[in-house]
């Protein structure tokens, strides 16, 4: 696509140090405004919380190995699943792809020197840290047992640290808003010369759509949590039925943000997959325009489907019917994406590198996740499946099988760019296999549990569900081993990996047109873009195909 036209003067320059070595010392990291370093700091923080929340999940699954109470009391179980959810959602998934990976590669892909507001970028990282500290502090204030959704009136009456937790989520929301504003402006204003909207990599489209949702939806979460806090402290009576309020309204307020938030979590994953399937099959993406526009379409439609979380909540049946209809409308752009990715493989030259294995795992798991979403959007079927393990399995297929798998694939894909080191391919492939097997064993069984009526958030259950719970628990241990293999492989690469070339995968997008790791200001020269980011040299232009 693009050719970096180096001026003679630039060529004469001695090789510039990379962003990792340009400055040294702890302070050079703490006060950096370099998007790459901020991205890495986000990465370290989000992976830490992924580890914490992941271990909590393993504890939950282990408790569920038998139908009766094992090593956790009911109260402890409730606190652990709440923390698992809250940390995963607010501290891991929402910032993972956009803030960690996105921060690193967005300006690189755009051919920009940095994001539009570098200081704001650093500020949003520190706001995120404050939020993380607040959420962790709840552990010392009696923890939290409301579930990550903070439903009223339970969250109003429980004795746990609801205020600290909601303030943490509130602050995390600000971090998310600032990142969103920053990215929208960056995409609008910082594109390299010649990078028209139609020449943007699909990863950028996905991050752009995500950032739009962050800007438009998160303020509503902020005000919802604010109202919850004053409701709990002052009893003003908006959500509390005893004082004249209505608890179902809280659900409306909450899901108006939190449904779009689901797409904050998954859209960047879509972007990563679009990059992975093209680069590793050396094929132009199939249906560029459809994928790009469907990202924006999903972003907009995601705002009008929140009621499908409330089909049995006491929302009016008429509203339920409208929301069900709109929910099916959001399924179409999602289906288009999956078909387009599979079609991209057609006629390619598929290299089974580790990132590609993760992309293929994603296609499997996300297809399952998407199709089971259709069950839940169907009104009468949802009445049966709502708040059962079917829902648990569905959103884990989308969030873990979708976002996390894409995120890991993206990490493997961009790791050579981030650290200038290649990882061990064999270990990477083994990790993909373990994740695939472990994940499907854990969550496929939960679909069966759900359609057999097993409700969510039960620490003890009827004996008839025991066998499937045991299979699921064993799967979760395999998944854990797989994820630790991922971590080990990546960390090993930083220290012992072979030196990576600037473009190990033969990609065309701008992020690969600079050194690995990149120099501090990304590019020596302003890059001029003249074509598509998917115009691989391997593509046969002679007309021999067809």
């Amino acid at each position: 696509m693009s050719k970096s036209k180096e001026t003679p003067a630039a060529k004469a320059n001695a090789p510039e140090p990379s962003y990792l070595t340009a400055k040294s010392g702890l302070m050079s990291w703490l006060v950096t405004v370099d998007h790459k370093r901020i991205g890495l700091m986000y990465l370290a923080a989000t992976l830490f919380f992924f580890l914490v929340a992941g271990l909590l999940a393993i504890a939950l699954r282990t408790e569920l190995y038998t139908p009766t109470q094992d090593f956790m009391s009911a109260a402890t179980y409730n606190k652990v699943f709440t923390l698992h959810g809250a940390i995963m959602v607010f501290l891991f998934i929402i910032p993972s792809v956009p803030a960690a990976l996105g921060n690193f590669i967005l300006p690189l892909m755009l051919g920009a020197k940095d994001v539009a507001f570098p200081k704001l970028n650093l500020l949003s990282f520190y706001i995120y840290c404050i939020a993380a500290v607040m959420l962790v502090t709840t552990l010392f204030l009696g923890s939290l047992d409301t579930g990550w959704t903070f439903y009223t009136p339970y969250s109003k009456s429980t004795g746990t640290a609801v205020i600290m937790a909601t303030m943490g989520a509130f602050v995390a929301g600000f971090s998310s808003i600032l990142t969103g504003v920053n990215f929208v402006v960056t995409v609008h204003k910082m594109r390299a010369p010649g990078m028209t909207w139609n020449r943007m990599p699909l990863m950028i489209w996905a991050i752009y759509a995500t950032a739009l949702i962050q800007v438009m939806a998160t303020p509503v979460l902020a005000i919802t949590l604010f109202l919850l806090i004053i409701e709990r402290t002052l009893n003003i009576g908006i959500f509390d039925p005893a004082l004249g309020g209505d608890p179902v309204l809280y659900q409306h307020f909450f899901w108006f943000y939190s449904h779009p938030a689901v797409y904050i979590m998954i859209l960047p994953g879509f972007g990563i997959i679009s990059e992975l399937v093209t680069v590793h099959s050396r094929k132009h993406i199939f249906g560029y325009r459809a994928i790009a526009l469907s990202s924006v379409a999903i972003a907009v439609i995601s705002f009008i489907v929140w009621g499908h979380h409330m089909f049995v909540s006491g929302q009016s049946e008429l509203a339920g019917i409208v929301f069900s209809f709109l929910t099916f409308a959001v399924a179409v752009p999602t289906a288009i994406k999956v078909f387009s990715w599979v079609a991209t493989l057609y006629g390619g030259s598929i290299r089974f590198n580790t990132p590609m294995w993760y992309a293929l795992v994603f296609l499997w798991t996300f297809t399952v996740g998407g199709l089971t979403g259709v069950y839940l959007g169907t009104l009468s079927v949802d009445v049966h499946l709502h708040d059962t393990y079917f829902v648990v399995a569905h959103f884990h297929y989308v969030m873990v099988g979708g976002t996390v798998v894409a995120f890991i694939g993206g990490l493997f894909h961009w790791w050579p760019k981030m650290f200038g080191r290649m990882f061990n391919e064999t270990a990477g492939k083994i990790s993909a296999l373990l994740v695939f097997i472990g994940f499907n064993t854990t969550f496929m069984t939960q679909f069966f549990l759900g359609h057999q009526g097993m409700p969510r958030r039960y620490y003890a259950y009827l004996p008839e569900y025991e066998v499937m719970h045991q299979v699921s628990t064993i799967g979760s241990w395999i998944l854990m081993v797989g994820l630790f293999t991922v971590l080990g492989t990546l960390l090993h690469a930083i220290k012992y990996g072979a030196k990576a070339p600037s473009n190990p995968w033969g990609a065309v997008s701008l992020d690969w047109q600079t050194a690995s790791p990149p120099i501090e200001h990304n590019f020596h020269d302003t890059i001029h873009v003249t074509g598509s980011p998917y115009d691989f040299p391997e593509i046969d232009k002679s007309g021999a195909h067809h």
Partner: protein
Amino acid sequence: MSSTSAHDDEERPWFLAHHFDTVGQQVSAAKLGMWLFCCTEVLMFSGLFLAYFIIRTLYPEMVLGASEELNKTAGGVNTIVLLTSSFTMALGVRAAQTNNQKALERNLLITIACAFIFMIVKYFEYTAKIEHGLLPGNWYAAAEHGYMLPKYSRVFFGVYFTMTGLHGVHVLVGIGVLSWIFIRARRREFNSENYVAVENAGLYWHIVDLVWIFLFPLLYLVK
């Protein structure tokens, strides 16, 4: 096709950040960012407005009865005060655009003064409410102060204090932002090429005004 190298010895104005190529790019980025921030403010307040409409739907008579207790004249005066401050703010931006240093400082000062007047009027309103026990939530004590208000009136005062309180916080933040802009203006940092900070502070201030334009009739006036 040639390229512009970052290492060219172009004339870069002092206020142009390293990662932008032109002043125009920097200015339009800053403005777009500010507009997006305005969007988030609108959406955030929309939640409170929705809460208001909901209690109005649930208890129409209660809202009408309870809103009678608010001081319409104080609200009206405050509306005029805020509109005036918006007007002078717009003139201030214009003064920066036209290099009119004196007018810029003067208009900023008037704007800040109006913000203070707004808060003072608010203070008297709140004091009156406190005296009558018309307070949000736990502190609501209308009956003890001899007020026979409709049932659930405390919900109305909860929403009233939340809305005006959050708006008041925005006014206070606005005072801070405008004072900072005023100090920078005194240092003669702004001119017809570099005034985007004034403009963005202005956008923020207009949003504060905008919210009040809706708050006033809904809380104070509507029967």
